[in-house]
């Protein structure tokens, strides 16, 4: 705990100092860098110390700290239990990486905005996110949550001269703030039930099933907006392209995970829900996962694509969570623990590799000055570091073996299969649904990232004007390398993280982990990694064989075989849209996939055009009409303020008469 307080203290003071020195960029940047490193170090220590404790006291060991400040409902009461600690872990890792990267990113920023203030806000965001994670009082939680929204809004709209950015920020602010009302409602209902706003007291109190269903729905909407479940995901694809890359890394790595954290916290407080709640969660998860990756396939703007992938991964996480809750509802501890562990681990992994992806995407955008994949290509030669780091990221997000994504998806699959084994027909049906969804997600994700990596980094360069691509420097490379290393580490030696995830999962299930089950989970993972090592050995052997066979041939290089075309040009490559077209055509009915083509005509054809696009259903067909209706309604009623005094007096009279009739008939 003390470590956490220290890091909070460092962050607070340094953010104030940065704000004071915001005029001189040099000082503020230095200050930012070192304070960030120190604070994150202490934070990681605190999280680790909680997660490593091997006490048999049971899962609910939490270290508390309280400041005697009187507010009507709330008090400043924080504590770390394994669940919070787990999220703190990823928070500190990602914000460390993103922060250092941002320091490098902004070094040669020459815009009108004040960098010092921006950096101070970055610290502030870290602080409030920590507070959300460790808050043990609903009001503190809400306040921190709300602040988180506001601060992140300002970070997103850093470059708000751009109309697009302003719009994106506005959508983000609106969406999340509306979510806050659901949360406030939910927590207050809990508080009214428990008679106190402290989480501990709430955890003690039992909730009647009907009420808990209501709470679940409120929580799902409130936290789901933040986490980006379909159909509440609307803000994500707007916010990410608008924000600077390290901010999107933080958003998608940590911020949306905090939505997941909230959901889990609610599950800790309200222990049992009616069965349809987890089932609903599972279904929404399947929809978000598949929908997210399908939309991602349709995107050609790199950060939009990554944003939709965040939605997909939230779907995967929620699949694990859902099956875990179903298992909990059936009192199948194996399924429950497995599912929740899988969800937690995937949360961590996604934070890491999505952070990596966003950061590397950022340095791509920084050197190409565009986010449109159709103008990229062949960058692996020009930006070797970025390219390879992006490759590692995409291998992880495709859950391919050797990388961390595989471990967590393996766990999710495992839990779903356990569900198939241990549940009754009803449960089996939904486990199958989960399996199908997850399989589809995995395949599509692989397809999508083959497209992304291939189109951005491989082949010829598509852009017409020649850029001077310059590779990012050490301060930007370092954090990415750190994240990449973590990806590989978790992929090859998963035991530690899985162990931590177990610690956290026990908080949710409330039952301490039987050792046998732990072994039953751990062993396969170890064996799987052993198979992977065999694979590596085979690879080495093959490589040596190849070297041996080719020893006395000199490799000669030519053009790619153009299949008979005499002048193959870079514009003849497969583009991102054409790569994704077949699969999108298969799913066109749900995606509203449309291809507009202007075909060249005549003997001396003028230039033709071809563009394909997918429509985000929930945005186009739900939210926009909704807002339109709201605005229209308010415009319809403007006549109330007609400007005639006489009419106004009439209102008073009417009210008088109505009240008299109503009250004294």
């Amino acid at each position: 705990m003390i470590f956490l307080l220290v890091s909070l203290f460092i962050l607070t003071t340094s953010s104030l100092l940065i704000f004071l020195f915001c005029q001189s960029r040099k000082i503020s940047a230095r200050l930012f860098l070192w304070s960030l490193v120190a604070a994150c170090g202490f934070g990681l220590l605190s999280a680790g110390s909680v997660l490593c404790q091997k006490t048999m006291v049971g899962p609910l060991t939490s270290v508390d700290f309280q400041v005697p400040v009187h507010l009507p409902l709330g008090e400043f009461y924080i504590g770390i239990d394994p669940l919070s600690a787990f999220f703190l872990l990823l928070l500190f890792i990602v914000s460390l990486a993103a922060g250092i990267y941002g320091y490098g990113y902004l070094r040669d920023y020459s815009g009108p905005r004040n960098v010092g203030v921006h950096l101070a806000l970055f610290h502030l965001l870290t602080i409030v996110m920590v507070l959300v994670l460790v808050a043990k009082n609903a009001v503190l939680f809400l306040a921190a949550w709300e602040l988180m929204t506001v601060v992140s809004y300002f970070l997103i709209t850093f470059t708000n001269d751009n109309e697009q950015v302003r719009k994106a920020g506005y959508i983000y602010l609106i969406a999340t703030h509306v979510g806050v009302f659901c949360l406030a409602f939910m927590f207050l209902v809990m508080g009214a039930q428990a008679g106190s706003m402290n989480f501990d007291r709430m955890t003690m109190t039992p909730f009647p099933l009907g009420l808990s269903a209501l709470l679940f729905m409120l929580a799902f909407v409130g936290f789901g907006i933040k986490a980006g479940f379909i159909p509440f995901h609307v803000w994500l694809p707007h916010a990410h392209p608008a924000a600077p890359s390290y901010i999107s890394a933080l958003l998608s790595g940590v911020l949306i995970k905090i939505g997941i954290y909230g959901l889990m916290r609610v599950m800790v407080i309200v222990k049992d829900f009616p069965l349809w709640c987890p089932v609903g969660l599972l279904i929404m998860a399947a929809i978000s996962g598949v929908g997210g990756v399908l939309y991602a396939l349709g995107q050609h703007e790199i950060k939009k694509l990554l944003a939709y992938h965040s939605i997909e991964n939230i779907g995967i996480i929620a699949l694990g969570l859902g099956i875990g809750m179903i298992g909990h509802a059936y009192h199948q501890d194996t399924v429950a623990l497995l599912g929740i562990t899988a969800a937690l681990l995937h949360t961590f992994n996604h934070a890491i590799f999505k952070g990596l992806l966003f950061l590397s995407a950022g340095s791509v955008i920084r050197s190409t000055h565009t986010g449109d994949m159709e103008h990229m290509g062949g960058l692996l030669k020009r930006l070797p570091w970025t390219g390879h780091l992006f490759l590692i990221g995409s291998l992880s997000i495709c859950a391919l073996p050797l990388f961390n994504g595989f471990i967590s998806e393996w766990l999710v699959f495992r839990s779903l299969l356990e569900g198939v084994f241990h549940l009754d027909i009803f449960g089996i049906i939904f486990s199958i649904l989960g399996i199908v969804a997850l399989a589809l997600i995995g395949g599509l994700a692989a397809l999508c990232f083959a497209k992304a990596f291939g189109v951005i980094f491989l082949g010829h360069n598509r852009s017409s004007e020649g850029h001077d691509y310059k590779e990012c420097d050490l301060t930007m490379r370092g954090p990415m390398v750190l994240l990449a290393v973590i990806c590989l580490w978790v992929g090859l030696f998963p035991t530690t993280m899985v162990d931590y995830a177990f610690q956290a999962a026990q908080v949710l299930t409330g039952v301490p982990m039987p050792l046998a089950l732990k072994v039953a989970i751990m062993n396969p993972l170890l064996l799987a990694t052993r198979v992977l090592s065999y694979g590596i050995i085979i690879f080495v052997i093959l490589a040596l064989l190849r070297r041996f066979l080719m020893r006395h041939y000199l490799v000669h290089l030519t053009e790619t075989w153009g299949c008979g075309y005499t002048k193959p040009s870079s514009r003849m490559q497969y583009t991102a849209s054409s790569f994704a077209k077949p699969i999108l055509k298969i799913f066109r009915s749900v995606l509203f996939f449309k291809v507009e083509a202007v075909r060249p005509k005549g003997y001396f054809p003028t230039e033709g055009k071809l563009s394909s696009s997918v429509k985000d259903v929930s945005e186009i067909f739900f939210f926009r009409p909704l807002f339109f209706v709201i605005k229209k309604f308010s415009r319809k009623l403007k006549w109330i303020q007609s400007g005639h005094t006489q009419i106004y007096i009439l209102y008073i009279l009417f009210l008088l008469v109505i009240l008299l009739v109503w009250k004294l008939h």
Partner: protein
Amino acid sequence: MNVLLLHLAILFVFPPLLLGSIGKTKAFFAGRIGPPLLQPYYDILKLMQKASVYSVTTNWIFRAAPMVSLAAVVSAGILMPVAGVKPPVQFGGDLILFVYLLALARFVIVLAALDTGSSFEGMGASREATFGCLSEITVFLNLTILALLSRSLSLSEIFLGGLSSSWLQVGPVLILVVVSFFLVLLVENSRIPIDDPETHLELTMIHEVMVLDHSGVDLAYILYGKAVKLFLFGTMLVSMMMTFRTQDLWVDTIFFFFEMIGFAILIGVVESTMARLRLNKVSFLLFSAFIFSIFGFIVILVRGAHP
């Protein structure tokens, strides 16, 4: 120990023979003598002795891809019980690893195809990835059914006797699974009616067009990898159908040998009797495979054959 050696030996030596016997079958139907049975071995050895040509566009990915994919396929093979022989490694949930290793193999080949920056290979890559990710679902679903029937999550337990009782209980389900699995197998290994390994008309090909630029050792690796993959799928299909085992190792091996040859002949028959489907029909085929296995599930749930 020798069991292990036997497993690896079969895994490494046998696969090209399948291709050979398929070729023979097709030649028989075409009324030709056709290439010798061991032609694939010759091809691979010949390719291994040749130099390679590389495009200037490509990176190391292009060169590493064949090795990675072959390694992935082989290490997937390490999980697969062959001829009633326990695989070197087995654990609960290795079927997931199995599928993901195959996915890895496909992924790197797709990347290699994109690496060349050629329009045709990009096209092939796109198609391969598309059909691959669609067939993956069905593979998973079928494996889940088998796991449910044999109450275990590891391939070896499923295929070594896990299913023997199920034929009696829920035969129809297994038939459905076998059919859908066979369809998926055709797609995964790019055989007719989905894809034609022989023709070299770029626009019609899926898998072949991806590897147009590979040559020499790399092509050899790819060919061999293809053979191993076919072998693995064939093994699964065969051990799905032939659950009967005498506990004698050698007898089982002989049996297995003939079963596989039979499987190859079956493929050959299909290839020589059917025409190639139009590309946009392939997804229907995959969908029907999916429907088969879903239907199998429904039968299971109705029969109450689940725990």
